[in-house]
């Protein structure tokens, strides 16, 4: 599939008081399906609406209300599975996960424990240093999201909003293949990128559309390899699950903090209890969620309101045929077709808008030059204004126009930057701007020669020095460029200066 090959990254090691430890991490990522309506009701999924306004009686669990599945959500889950090169289960089924919480009016969450819709897949996680980890995905299942409890609006009451209740989530469960905090963040980044390419989840972590539970355990160097050989978990330490995180930075912190906590326990002669924990970023510690432990007996059973979900291979094939080009393939193509570096290709394929913009600029032009202008000039300038590529004041055609003027030697690289700034702030056609404002490069050797002669005549001392030390010729080039307002063709100036000085 890929022209790119990678080495496996080294697992993160943490030095304990007694010896070194390695980390073993598995992640459960909850990704909200981008759909108009909820998984089992016709209420809207829109974020930020008036509280309890996007609620059908099904979501509020009124007696007698029955769930009817949203076919589009199923399609999105299948599409996601295909995007992760996973097996699709033509038959899956829904189960009830029973627990009590105010934001779960049914008293159970409809989920897929025993027969998930998607089976084993994989995610290639590049670490940006030429290494990459292939993280196995164990399964993806569909389930209902819970509502939202707000605890800070009243001293004695919690407020509950059911707008999110019943929105379709995909729970993407990885194998314990992630070996450090940076890898965990990179895995989540890659997963987010793939979902956004597929259009199955908007990946917005701030609004909670994507959030992760992270399972962390520690082991001695060598133990993980023994686990890999045998797939026997007894070689690994007891894991703790850190719940519900939606910040890349906090995820990394939490993993590190949790690993150190476990190392201290084990080195102190104790044992780690398998439990659910919460990360407190203020105190930089994880702490046990005892209430969760008590409710851990979920008494799953098949949901009698829903028949098994059977889908047809033809339907799956149609979805497969409509998959877009995915990040790995696009990146490999950018490297192959445009001659980009691995790094530049990664930056440009990070999201679809950037990739599309670059392709428009690079079409019929030098790929590397287009990449440089998009990444260094455009992205740099947009970042300064906190704008994203979708709102770029410079269109691909305009940026292409600037590049064409450089390529045809009409303007120098330095002038091109001024021109870019003008196009960015004022708009307009680059070629017309260059013409109107006299920014054209002077390639007329006669004019440049006159300027060179003038500088040489005015600076006999410098001339003497430069004749001793050819490196000083650069000073003359600079003076000529200054005298011509930067419009002289630097190549021509260089040649003339060298010729005249040695002349």
């Amino acid at each position, binding site marked *: 599939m890929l022209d790119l090959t990678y080495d496996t990254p080294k697992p993160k090691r943490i030095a304990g008081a007694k010896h070194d430890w390695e980390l073993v991490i598995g992640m459960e990522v909850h990704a909200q399906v981008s759909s108009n309506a909820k998984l089992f009701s016709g209420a809207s999924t829109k974020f930020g609406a008036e*509280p309890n306004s996007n*609620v059908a009686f099904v979501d509020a669990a009124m007696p007698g209300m029955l769930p009817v*599945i949203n076919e*589009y959500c199923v399609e999105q889950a299948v599409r996601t599975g295909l995007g992760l090169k996973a097996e699709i289960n033509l038959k899956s089924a829904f189960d009830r996960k029973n627990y009590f*919480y105010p934001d779960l009016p049914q008293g159970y969450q409809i989920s897929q424990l025993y027969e998930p819709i998607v089976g084993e897949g994989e995610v290639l996680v590049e670490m940006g240093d030429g290494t990459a980890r292939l993280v196995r995905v164990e399964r993806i299942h569909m389930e209902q999201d819970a509502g939202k409890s707000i*605890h800070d609006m009243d001293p004695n*009451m*919690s407020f509950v909003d059911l707008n999110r209740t019943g929105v379709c989530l995909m729970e993407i469960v990885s194998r314990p293949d992630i070996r450090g905090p940076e890898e965990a963040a990179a895995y989540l980044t890659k997963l987010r990128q793939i979902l956004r390419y597929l259009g199955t989840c908007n990946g917005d972590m701030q609004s909670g559309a994507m959030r992760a539970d992270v399972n962390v355990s520690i082991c001695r160097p060598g133990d993980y390899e023994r686990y890999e050989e045998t797939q026997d978990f007894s070689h690994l330490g007891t894991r703790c699950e850190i719940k519900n995180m939606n910040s890349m930075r906090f995820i990394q912190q939490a993993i590190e903090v949790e690993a150190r906590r476990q190392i201290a326990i084990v080195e102190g002669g104790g044992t780690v209890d398998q439990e659910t924990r919460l990360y407190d970023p203020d105190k930089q510690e994880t702490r046990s969620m005892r209430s969760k432990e008590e409710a851990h007996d979920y008494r799953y059973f098949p949901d009698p309101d829903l028949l098994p979900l059977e889908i047809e291979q033809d339907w799956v094939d149609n979805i497969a045929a409509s998959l877009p080009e995915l990040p790995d393939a696009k990146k490999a193509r950018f490297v192959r077709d445009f001659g980009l570096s691995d790094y530049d290709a990664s930056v440009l394929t990070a999201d679809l808008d950037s990739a599309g913009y670059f392709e428009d600029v690079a079409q019929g032009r030098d790929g590397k030059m287009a990449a440089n202008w998009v990444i260094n000039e455009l992205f740099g300038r947009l970042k300064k204004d906190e704008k994203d590529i979708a709102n770029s004041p410079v269109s691909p055609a305009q940026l292409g126009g600037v590049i064409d003027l450089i390529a045809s030697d009409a303007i120098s690289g330095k002038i091109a930057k001024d021109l870019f700034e003008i196009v960015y702030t004022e708009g307009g056609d680059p070629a017309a701007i260059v013409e109107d404002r006299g920014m054209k490069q002077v390639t007329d050797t006669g004019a440049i020669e006159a300027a060179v002669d003038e500088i040489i005549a005015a600076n006999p001392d410098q001339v003497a020095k430069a004749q001793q030390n050819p490196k000083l010729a650069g000073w003359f080039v600079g003076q000529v460029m200054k005298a011509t307002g930067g419009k002289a063709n630097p190549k021509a100036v260089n040649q003339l200066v060298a010729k005249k000085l040695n002349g």
Partner: protein
Amino acid sequence: MSIDESTAARVAKLARIKVEPEALGALAQEFNGILGFIEQLNEVDVEGVEPMTSVTPQRLKRREDVVTDGDQQDKVLKNAPDAREGFFAVPKVVE
């Protein structure tokens, strides 16, 4: 498997059903009766038999991804013992 009083108490707690301690014995007894019947069913050999999910052949009914419901905050909150500013108000639950 036999259900004792402490198991009955635990199941009651998980289901949020209040059971007086003196009623637990009888409840455990009833559970054991039900489980005994299930054990009897377990004696039937169903190896290779697909679990029946429907009496008549049926396909799971689907809906289209169209918003057809909602916008009824007043109705949703109508039965709530306490509601404020559009929210259900419940006794404080904090992790």
